[in-house]
C-alpha cells in the first residue's frame, strides 16, 4: 500500500490514530490540571504545554521503546507520549502514593526510568548533561538506544547547554536535543534574550546539524526528529531540532501574561496542532469525522477516569516521609 503522507520510516499510517489520541490525552490532561489548580483542588505549581502537543508527540513517535528521554518542567506531554499512564500522573499531582513518584515529586518531577523517561526537571537546562550521560551509557555498553533531550528556548541560554552539547558532539553520542521554542522563557521573549533568530543556528558552533521545524505540524516534527534520531542511531552523533511553537497558557499557574498581546495568542490558537492533524487525517481519508470524534471522546474519558483514580488513591502516611532516603 502506498503511503499518502510523507512519514519517517518508524511511523506507519496505521499509527497515526494513536498519535492523534495522545495529543488529545495531553490536551485534556492539562486542561483538567489547569482547572484543578484554578479551583485550588491541587496545590503547588504546574507548567502547561497546551498548544505544544505536536512537538512532544511527534518527537517521541519516531523512537523505539528502548530509547530514552529527558523532559522539562513543562513535561506532561513528554510523559504521556513516552507511554506514561494518565492515572499515575494525575495521582502524582494529587500527591497520592499511586503516583509515579509516590506523591513526592509532583508535576515537575514525573519520571518512569524503567520505561525510558529519565524524568522531568525543575532546573531549567538540567536535562542537557543527564541526557548526554545516558547517551554515553548507550555508547559504552553498545545498547543502541537514542536519547531525546527536550528543552525550551530559555534553557538554551544556560551554560549547561553549551557544555553538554559540546561534550556530546566530540564524543558523537546518540542524543538529539529538541528545542521546543514556545517563544517565551517565563516572561522573557526569545527574541530579546538571544541575538540569533533560531536556537538551531547554534548547532553550527558544535559542528552538528541544526534544523528548524514547524512545531505545530506533527508531520514536520516527525520527519525532522526522525532524521536526527536515525543519524544518532547510526553513530553519527547529536543534532539540534528546533520546533517553533507556542504555549497557550501562562508560564505557570500565576501568570497575568502582561508580556504578550491577546492578538498574538489568538493568532497561535488558529495554528492548533491537534486540529491541524485532524484535518489532514480526515482530508487524506485516514480517519472519518466520526472516528476522530470517537478518539477525542475516548481520550477525554480516560482523563476523567484518572481523576477518579487519583481522588480514590491513598495519601502517603507520615511514615513514608523518610522512605527512599539513604543519606
Amino acid at each position, binding site marked *: 500500500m502506498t503511503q499518502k503522507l510523507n512519514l519517517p520510516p518508524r511511523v506507519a499510517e496505521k499509527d497515526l490514530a494513536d498519535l492523534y489520541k495522545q495529543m488529545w490525552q495531553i490536551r485534556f490532561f492539562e486542561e483538567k490540571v489547569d482547572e484543578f489548580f484554578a479551583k485550588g483542588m491541587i496545590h503547588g505549581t504546574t507548567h502547561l504545554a497546551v498548544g505544544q502537543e505536536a512537538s512532544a508527540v511527534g518527537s517521541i513517535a519516531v523512537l523505539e521503546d528502548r530509547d*530514552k528521554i*529527558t523532559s522539562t518542567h513543562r513535561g506532561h506531554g513528554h510523559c504521556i507520549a513516552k507511554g506514561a499512564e494518565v492515572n499515575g500522573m494525575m495521582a502524582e499531582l494529587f500527591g497520592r502514593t499511586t*503516583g*509515579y*513518584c*509516590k*506523591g*513526592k*515529586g509532583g508535576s515537575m*518531577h514525573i*519520571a*518512569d*526510568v*524503567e520505561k525510558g523517561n*529519565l*524524568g522531568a*526537571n*525543575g*532546573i531549567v537546562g*538540567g536535562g*542537557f*548533561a*543527564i*541526557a*548526554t*550521560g*545516558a*547517551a*554515553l*551509557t*548507550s555508547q*559504552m*555498553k553498545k545498547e543502541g538506544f537514542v536519547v531525546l533531550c527536550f528543552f525550551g528556548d530559555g534553557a538554551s541560554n544556560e*551554560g*549547561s547547554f553549551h*557544555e*553538554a552539547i*559540546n*561534550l556530546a558532539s*566530540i564524543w558523537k553520542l546518540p542524543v538529539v536535543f529538541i528545542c521546543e521554542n514556545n517563544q517565551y522563557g517565563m516572561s522573557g521573549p526569545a527574541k530579546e534574550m538571544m541575538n540569533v533568530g533560531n536556537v538551531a543556528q547554534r548547532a553550527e558552533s558544535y559542528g552538528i546539524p541544526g534544523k528548524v521545524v514547524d512545531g505545530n505540524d506533527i508531520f514536520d516534527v516527525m520527519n525532522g526528529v526522525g532524521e536526527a534520531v536515525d543519524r544518532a542511531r547510526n553513530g553519527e552523533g547529536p543534532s539540534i531540532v528546533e520546533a517553533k511553537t507556542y504555549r497557550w497558557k501562562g508560564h505557570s499557574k500565576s501568570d497575568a501574561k502582561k508580556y504578550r498581546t491577546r492578538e498574538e495568542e489568538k493568532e497561535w490558537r488558529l495554528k492548533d496542532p491537534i486540529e491541524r492533524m485532524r484535518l489532514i487525517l480526515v482530508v487524506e481519508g485516514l480517519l472519518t469525522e466520526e472516528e476522530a470524534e470517537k478518539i477525542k471522546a475516548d481520550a477525554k474519558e480516560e482523563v476523567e477516569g484518572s481523576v477518579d483514580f487519583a481522588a480514590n488513591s491513598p495519601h502517603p502516611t507520615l511514615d513514608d516521609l523518610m*522512605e*527512599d*532516603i*539513604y*543519606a
Partner: protein
Amino acid sequence: MRELTYLEAVREAMSQEMRQNEDVFILGEDIGVYGGAFGVTRGMIEEFGPERIRNTPISEAAISGTAVGAALTGMRPILELQFSDFITIAMDNMVNQAAKIRYMYGGKGKVPMVLRTPAGSGTGAAAQHSQSLEAWMTHIPGLKVVQPSTAYDAKGLLKAAIDDDNPVIFYEHKLCYKTKSDVPEESYSIPLGKADVKREGKDATIVATAIMVHRSLEAAAELEKEGISVEVIDPRTLVPLDTETIIESVKKTSRLVVVHEAVKRGGFGGEIASVIAESEAFDYLDAPIKRLGGKAVPIPYNPELEKAAIPGVDDIINAVKETVNRL
C-alpha cells in the same frame, strides 16, 4: 605488609574495581596521558584505554551531569574534579540532580556515582584552589560525604563508595597524597559510617578530619610527654556519621576538641559539637567543647599567612590543655 602512598592507594582501589566491573569508568579533565592534576590516574589510560579513562573538556557542569545520566542508566562513573573548589560549577548536578533523584522519583532510579576531588590548603595555590567545602555537601540530604586521612582508609573507603548505589563525594586531601601506610594488596571495603579510633586515650577526645588527623596525632604525641592522654577519632565519613563512637569516647574522657581545616564558621565541627550537646555524653563533659577550624578568610598565598589561616599542631595542643586544665 607493603606500604603505599595515599595517592597510590586511591589509584589501586579504582584499578581493582575497574578490572572487576566493566561498568566502572573514570571521567575528568586531564586524567588521560597527563595522569590527572595530581597524578592519581597516572598509568591508568595505558591499562584501561581512553574509553574508560575518559578525558573531558573543561566543563565541570557537563561532566558532573553526564556522570549523573550515565549512573542513572546503568554505569558506575567515577568523576574526578581537579580541585574541590570547582565543585561550585558542578554543584547544580550534585545538589539538585544526583542527591534528589532517588527520593524525588519515589525510589525508582538510582545514581551510583563517586565524585573524587582533592581539597585543602598547604600547596600555595591560594584562594580558589585550597578550600575545604565539605560542610556544604553534608548539608544536602542524598549525598554521602567521605574524607579519608590515611592510605589504608582511602583504599577501603573508595571501594565502598564505588560499590554504593548512591552518590558519594570523596574528598582527598592534597597533603595526604604522599603519606604512607600499610595497605593490603587485595581489595577490601571499609563501611561508610564507621569511625576509626586512631589513638586511644583517657583525658580528652579529639575528633579530627583529613590532614587534621595527622596534626592531632602529632599533638597527642607531644601531650603524652606532659602526661596528658588523648584519644584521636577520625570519623572518616561525615555522612553517614558514626555518632556512637564519638559519644562513647566523650563519655570516657569527658572532654572534646573538634578540629578541621575548613572554616570554623558553619563548619562540620559545629555538627559534631551538637551531637555531643544533644547526647547523654553532655552530662559527662567536664569542660566546654572546643572547636578549632580555619579562620574566616580566603586562603592566602603567602606561606606564613597560609599556615596561620588553619589550625596547627600548637593550636591543637593549646586547645587540649585548656580543656584538660579547666576544672
